[in-house]
């Protein structure tokens, strides 16, 4: 699992995970800070991007200000042999951003998780019902976040 990442790349990650300067040459400013050229920074960033280490550069929006006030995590009880098909069906919905399979426990029998986005509880319920009809999976629960206690982007290479 040990990923190959150089000390310089770690420093680059630490800068790029913060706010990109809002000025004409933002990468130049960061490169100056790191003591490298703008060209080298851009070359390395493009490499990190190609390797999938940098998933994307860009803006992250506040959902509540962009028309999406509501999301629900729908957790499904699905027999092992049906998970593949059910997961694929869930993945086709535009309203669903994430679909994961996770382990089950006697007190937590839900194996598939789908994150449904909508404008209301009713939207989320409607998507869940639609999936239920399509897949024949009737055992599910919808978890709503009733309080946000922490929501941040991970800061890497800052542990020590």
């Amino acid at each position, binding site marked *: 699992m040990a990923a190959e990442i150089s000390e310089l790349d770690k420093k680059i990650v630490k800068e790029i995970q913060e706010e990109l300067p*809002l000025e*004409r040459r933002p990468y130049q400013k960061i490169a100056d800070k790191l003591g490298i050229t703008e060209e080298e920074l851009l070359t390395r960033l493009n490499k990190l991007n190609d390797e999938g280490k940098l998933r994307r550069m860009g803006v992250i929006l506040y959902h509540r200000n962009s028309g999406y006030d509501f999301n629900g995590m729908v957790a499904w009880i699905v027999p092992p042999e049906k998970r593949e098909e059910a997961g694929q069906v869930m993945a086709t919905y535009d*309203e669903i951003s994430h679909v994961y399979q996770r382990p089950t426990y006697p007190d937590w029998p839900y194996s598939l998780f789908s994150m449904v986005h909508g404008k209301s509880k009713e939207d989320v319920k409607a998507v869940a019902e639609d999936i239920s009809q399509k897949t024949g999976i009737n055992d599910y629960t919808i978890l709503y976040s009733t309080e946000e206690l922490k929501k941040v982007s991970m800061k890497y290479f800052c542990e020590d």
Partner: protein
Amino acid sequence: MAKELDEVDQELLTTTQRNFPLVAEPYKAIGDRLGIDADEVIERLKDLKDAGYIRRLGGIFSSKKLGYVSTLVATKVDEDKFYEIADKISAYHGVTHNYRRNHDFNLWFTLIAPSEEKLEEQLAEIADFEGINVLRNLPAERFFKIGVKLDMREKKGGEDS
């Protein structure tokens, strides 16, 4: 939310979510796509930040590809200790999301750590907090879909995090 988004703002938010250029003058490149100049792109982005549309402008990294491990954790927490425990959990650097949810499993959080050992160690610490009755580790075993970006023009999709 006082600010109304005009068409250019909407296109700007959509294009800067998906295709933010890794070039020397990124705001100029974005402006070229939208038919505005770099200074206007910068001004509009500043306004959208101030108005609370943009949470952050920067890089989003793959924890897995950087060598980190992550998981989702469900816990049952005593109601009278709920906030005390929620705060103790939120204090971990690698806890990025922490929510109360409408279920017997009433507190859910995500944890990212630099190694499997570190993750297990922190989970064991948290499981020992007085007031946590059950803790279930739910690491993703399989990904069917991960992270779709919002299209501001059609209002469809989600966020990746």
